[in-house]
C-alpha cells in the first residue's frame, strides 16, 4: 500500500502521473487485479476483504487527486513563466498621428458658434472683384484695398483675401434672418515671420430686421467667445476701421504670455490683438439689396489663435508638414 502511494507521489509530471494511473486504476491495473482476487476469497471473509480493498482504493484515489492538482498547478505555472515578457520594452509605439493645431483650433472655434446656432457656409477660393471687394464697400482705388495685398489672375479674378465674400454669397442666396460663420483658407501676398501667403479665417455674420441687432450684442458674443477660447483673460475693444463695418472695433485680450505686464509677444503693450468686428456697413446691405435690416460681422485669423493657444513659435512652421512640430500634438 505504501509503495503504491509512493508511486503516485513519485510521479513528477502529468504524463508520469497518467502512467501511474493506468498502472493502478486501469482495467489491468494493480487494483483491478486485487479486486479479481475477491472471487477466490471464502464467503465469510468476502465482506471484510472487499471493505479493505475499497478503503485502499479510496485512499489511493485521494492521493492521486492531490498529486494531480499539484502537478496541474505546476504545469500551468511553468506555461505562464514560459510566456513571461518585459512589458516595459513594448510601450511608446506612437501609432496615432496628430491633428494639425490650426485645424483643431478652427474646430474649437466652429464648435462654439455651431453651439450658438450659427450655420456653416462655404465659398470658392477664386473669387471675383464684386464678392471680394466691391460688394464689401471696397470700391476700386479705395485706400483700404492697400490693406490686403491681393493675388490677381490674368482674367481679373482674385484669390479671396478674406472669408468675407462668403457673407455676400450667403446674403445673395438666402434671406434674413441670417446667422452664419464661414471658415476657410484665404490668401494675401505677404511672406515673412508673421505672414504667410495662405492662412485661415473664420468669418461671422448675423443679420436681422432693422433695430434688432446692435453693437452691444456684438460686444456680448465676442467677449464670451474670447473667454471660451482663452479662459480668464481681459477683453478690450478698440474702435477701428474696416470698410465693410461701421462702427468697427478691433478686439484685444490681455497678453496670455505675460498676463498683461508687457513682453516681447505683445510688443510690451500687455495686449494681443485677436479679432476685428463691427456693425455691417449700410453700403454692404445696399450691394446685396437688403432693406431695413441690421447686422453685425466679425472675422479672425485662425493661425494667430492657434499660435497663441498652443504657443507655436514660428508661423511658417505650420505650413511645412514639419513632424517635429506636429508630433507634439499627438
Amino acid at each position: 500500500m505504501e509503495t503504491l502511494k509512493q508511486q503516485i507521489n513519485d510521479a513528477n509530471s502529468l504524463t508520469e502521473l497518467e502512467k501511474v494511473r493506468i498502472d493502478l486504476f486501469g482495467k489491468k491495473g494493480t487494483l483491478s487485479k486485487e479486486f479479481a482476487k475477491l472471487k477466490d476469497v471464502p464467503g465469510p471473509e468476502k465482506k471484510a476483504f472487499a471493505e479493505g480493498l475499497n478503503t485502499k482504493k479510496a485512499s489511493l484515489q485521494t492521493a492521486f487527486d492531490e498529486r494531480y492538482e499539484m502537478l496541474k498547478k505546476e504545469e500551468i505555472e511553468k506555461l505562464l513563466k514560459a510566456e513571461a515578457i518585459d512589458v516595459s520594452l513594448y510601450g511608446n509605439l506612437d501609432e496615432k498621428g496628430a491633428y494639425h493645431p490650426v485645424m483643431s483650433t478652427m474646430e474649437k472655434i466652429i464648435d462654439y458658434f455651431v453651439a450658438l446656432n450659427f450655420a456653416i457656409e462655404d465659398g470658392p477660393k477664386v473669387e471675383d472683384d464684386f464678392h471680394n471687394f466691391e460688394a464689401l464697400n471696397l470700391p476700386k482705388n479705395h485706400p483700404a484695398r492697400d490693406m490686403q495685398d491681393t493675388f490677381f489672375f490674368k482674367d481679373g479674378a482674385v484669390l479671396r483675401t478674406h472669408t468675407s465674400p462668403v457673407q455676400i454669397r450667403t446674403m445673395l442666396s438666402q434671406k434674413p434672418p441670417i446667422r452664419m460663420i464661414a471658415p476657410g483658407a484665404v490668401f494675401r501676398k505677404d511672406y515673412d515671420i508673421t505672414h504667410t501667403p495662405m492662412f485661415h479665417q473664420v468669418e461671422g455674420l448675423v443679420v436681422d430686421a432693422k433695430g434688432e441687432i446692435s453693437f452691444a450684442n456684438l460686444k456680448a458674443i465676442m467677449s464670451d467667445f474670447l473667454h471660451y477660447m482663452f479662459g480668464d483673460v481681459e477683453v478690450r475693444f478698440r474702435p477701428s476701421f474696416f470698410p465693410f463695418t461701421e462702427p468697427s472695433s478691433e478686439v484685444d485680450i490681455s497678453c496670455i504670455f505675460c498676463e498683461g505686464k508687457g513682453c516681447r509677444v505683445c510688443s510690451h503693450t500687455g495686449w494681443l490683438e485677436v479679432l476685428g468686428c463691427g456693425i455691417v456697413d449700410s453700403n454692404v446691405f445696399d450691394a446685396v439689396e437688403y432693406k431695413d435690416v441690421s447686422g453685425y460681422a466679425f472675422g479672425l485669423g485662425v493661425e494667430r489663435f492657434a499660435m497663441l493657444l498652443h504657443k507655436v513659435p514660428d508661423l511658417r512652421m505650420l505650413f511645412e508638414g514639419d513632424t517635429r512640430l506636429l508630433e507634439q500634438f499627438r
Partner: protein
Amino acid sequence: MIITRTWLENFLDISEVSDETLFKTLNAIGLEVDNIKTYTIPQKIVVGKILSCEKHPDADKLNVCQIEVGAGMQRQIVCGAANVVDAEYVAVACIGAKLGEDFEIKHAKLRGVESEGMVCSASELGLPNLGDGIMVLDETIGELVVGKELNEYKKIADTVIEIELTANRGDCLSVHGVARDLSAALNIPMKSFEYESQNQEKIGLARVAKLTSKGEINASLEFAMANVNNLDTSLLFLLRLGFIDKLSTTPIDNFLQYIIHTTGVILRAYDVSHLDFENDEKLIITAQNVNDVIHISLNDKKAAYLGIHQEEASKTTGKSTQVLFQASYVNPKHIVDVVSEQKIQTDELYYNTSRGSEPNLSFGITYLTYLFETYYNSKLFEGTLSVKEELEPTITTVSAEEICEIIGNKIPKMEIINILKALNFGVQTSIEDSFGITIPPYRHDIENIQDITEEIVRIIGIDNIEAKALKFVEKNRINKSMQKYHAKKALRSRAVSAGFDESISFAFADKKLLKAYDFSIINEKLDIINPITTDLNTLRTTTLINLLQAAKRNVSYSKKSTALFEIGTIFNEYREEKEVLSLIYAGQSESENVSNAGKPSSINFELFLKKISSIVGNFELKKSNETNGLIHPYQSADIIIDNKICGYLTKVHPSVCDDFDLKETFVAEIDFNALVPKHINAHAISKFQGVYKDLSFVINKDIHYTQVALSIKTLNLPLLKKYYPVDVYQDEALGEEKSLSLRFFIQSEEETLSDEAIEETIKRIISKIESDHGAALR
C-alpha cells in the same frame, strides 16, 4: 503715424495727463498705439558752454575745449568731432556719467592732454542719429542753462508714440490732427495758433509772380515765396524728424517735412533761384486741368501734378536761394481713381493726399511763416497767391434714436450733441429727435449715420457700452457645409488613428515642378499675375508635390518615417476647385522597436493599402490610368468607390524618390466628395446557410484580376453573394501563365442550397472564365 508728447503740447495742454491715460485714450478713440518709446538721457549729462576750443598739440583731428559745465565749474575736454569748433552749447557727459552698461565716463589722457568728460553726439545719448559730429544745443529745446541735466529737457527726453492709423483717418496724419481728436476725448480745448508775419521782404509776391488757372480747378492752392540763406535746421526740428524717421539731408526738405507732419497741410517747394526779380523777371504759375489732373507749370515749364508728384527739375537743392512754396489740397475722391486709371507715378506725399490731407491751407502757410521768421531768420515775400475751391459744407441729418439703436444702449441726445460739437461738427439742435449736422471739411471719412455712430462710440469708449446678448429665433441651421464639416472631421480623425500627421500646405505650386512631373497646369490665361515667389508661382493641381517636399524636409531632420495627410483644395486647368484627401507614407512602416529588432520593414503596397482602407473604408483597385511622373508603372492603382474612379495611389517612382531624397514612398490622392458618407439602407439577411467554394485557374499572367472579376460580374448570378482573390502563384513551370485562386460565397435567400444549385453556379463561373480568358481549371 508717429507723434511725441511734447509735440502734441504745441496744440494741446496735456501737462496734467499721465502717459498711461494718454495711451489709453488714444487706443480708446481708435488711434491704436503700436509702439511707445520714452527717451531717457543718463544722469550727469549736462548743458555745457564752450569757452574756448584749440587744436590738440599732437593730433590734427582733436580739439582741446574749455567747457563750462556749471556755475564756476570749468572742464578741459578733448573732442574729436569737427563741428565742435563752431559750437557754443553742447551736451557734456561729466565724469561718472554712464552711457551704457560698460561705458562710464572716466578721467582720461588723450595724446598727453587731460580730458575730464566727453562732448556727446545724439546717438551716443541713445537718441536718433542726427548726422555727423556732436549734438549742438540751441534754444529750440528750451532755455539753455549751463550745468542743467539734459534729461530735464522734455523736448529731448520725449515720449515717442507710434500710432497704427486706419485707412479712413487721413485727418490724423499730423500732430495737429491727433491733438484735435484727443482734445475731444480728453475734454481739453485746443490751444489756438495765430501768427502775424512781422519780418517780410519789401517785395510783394504779387508784383513778381502771377497765378493763372485753366479749366476747372477742383482743388485749393496757396503760394508763398522766400529768399533763403544759410537755412540751418534747429535742434528740435532735427530731433523730432529723427524721432519720426524722416530726417533728410537738405534743410528745406526737413523744414517742409516738419510743417507737413505738424499741420497735415501738403507743402511743396519749387526752386526759382534762377529768376532775377530785381531785374524785372517774372514768374507765371499756371494751374491747368488736363484730364482731371491739375498740372502746375512755372513759366510754362511743367513743375508738378498737383497732389501726386513733383518734377525732379523743379525741386529745391541745398543751393537754392529763392524758393516758391505751395500749399495744396485735393479731395481724395477727385484723385484716386484718376491716378489709378491714368497710371500716374506718385511720390511719398501722395499717400497723404489720397488719405485726405488738411484742407485749411492758411494754417500751413501761417505755420511756415511763423517757423521761418522765428527760427530761420529768413524773409518771406509779402502776401500769397491762391486759388480756392469753394468747399460746400456737407450737411446731413441724423436721428439720436437711430444712433442708440445701432449702439444698443440708451445715450442721451445731449451727450451725442456734445460729443459731435467737441469733434468740431456743426450741430443744428432742435427739439425733434433728428437734427442736422455739418461735417468738418477734414473728415473725409464721415458720410452716413453709421459713421456718426462710430464717432459717438469712439468718444464714449466701447468699454463703456453695456454688452447685451442677442435674442434670436430658433432655426435648424444644418446644411450641406455643416454635413461636409462633420464628414471632414470624421475623416481626419480616422487618418490620425491610422498614424498620419495632419499637414497644411499652401495652395500654390511651382509651375516648373508641376511640368517636370507631368501634372496638368492652370491655363495660361487664368494664371496668377503677381505670384509671391517663383516656387509658388501658380495654383497647385495636386497636393502630392507639397507632401513630397514636406517628406523631404522631414528626412533632412533625420526622420526615418513620414506619414502625412492633407485635406486641401486643388485646381484643374480651368481653375475649377476640388477638395482632395492626400496621403504620403515614406520610409519605415513602423517605429523601431524590440518586436522588429530595430529594423522595421519599409512601407509596402499592402501596408499602405490597409492604412488607406482604415481611413476611407472599402474600395476596389484597378490598374491606374494616371500618367503623372510620380506613378510607378507596376504598383499604381485607381481607387474605385461606388463604381467610380475617385482617386489613385501609387508607389512613388524611384527616380522621383531620388529627387526628394526619399526611400520607399507611397502616395494617394482621393476626391474628398467621394468620401462623404452616403445614406445606407439595410437589406434582408438570408436565414439559410451559405457555402464557400474555392476555384483555381491557370490563366495568362498579364490578365488582371479586374478583368476576371468583370467577367464574373456580367454573369449576374443570383446565388453568388461574394467573390474575391485569395492566392496568386507563378513559377517557371507555368511559363506565361499563372495560377489564380478565387473564393466564392454562395447563398440563397429562399432555401437551403441543393448540391445541384451550387454545382450549376460553379459551372457557369468556370465556363465563363474559360471562354473569356482562355483559362483552365487547375
